[in-house]
């Protein structure tokens, strides 16, 4: 039987992978995918706790996280596409018009 700690270590590893992607990659869409990875790892933690505590509330929380993730994906990609139209790039180190 797999214990809770295995799930927690797995989701911590996936979360750390997502953080690596967010802080090192230049392409905004890969940063985006890394954020989705992090959301997934947190969802996995919630489902693991929910199952090991015998309480479905954690799964309802995951359902809401998925809703927000879908909304975030739509708006985020719209912003990336608008940026690409204006600057012809999606590299986040070249999008620095807020910096002076």
């Amino acid at each position: 039987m797999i214990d809770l700690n295995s799930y927690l270590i797995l989701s911590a590893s996936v979360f750390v992978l997502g953080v690596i992607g967010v802080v090192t990659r230049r392409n905004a869409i890969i940063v985006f995918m890394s954020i989705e990875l992090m959301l997934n790892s947190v969802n996995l933690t919630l489902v693991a706790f929910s199952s090991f505590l015998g309480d479905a509330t954690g799964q309802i929380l995951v359902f809401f996280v998925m809703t927000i993730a879908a909304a975030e994906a739509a708006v985020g990609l719209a912003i990336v596409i608008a940026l690409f139209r204006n600057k012809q790039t999606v590299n986040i180190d070249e999008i620095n018009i807020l910096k002076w």
Partner: protein
Amino acid sequence: MELTTIVFYVFAAITLIAGAIVVFSRSIVYSAFALLFAFFGVAGLYVLLMADFLAVTQLMIYVGAILVLLIFGVMLTTRVIDVQMRTGTIHVLPALLIVAALAGVLVHVLVSTDWKVLPELFTPEETAPQIGTALLTTYVLPFEVASVILLVALIGAAMIARRERKV
């Protein structure tokens, strides 16, 4: 070794390897396809955790909607003809420090905390009726707010992404 243990390690390996490819691959298309397998691995783990409803939802929302949207984003923002599919990395050393600190904190917390859990995995018959009942009784307000958020996001995304109309 028990069958569930083997299945857990298989899905964990799929998720981790696919996640690593998403993050470290030079080609953005490989990243997008690896993300598919990462989502599949997580869905498999949901099944293993007896969360059948969420496993199906994961496949529908993440694989069916978000991933397709991401691939659209890749195709719209990458010059496919110019072979500009390669993407680089920045700030590797400071990033390593931050990530190492974060990983240390996470591992320390989850090892040192005494989690209060049931002695063995709770196995409800079906989670969908429970979730449905809770969503329409206790959590009906967040449920309705989520629907409004989705509508706002839909309109907002269409507003932001469309071409500016010439005045």
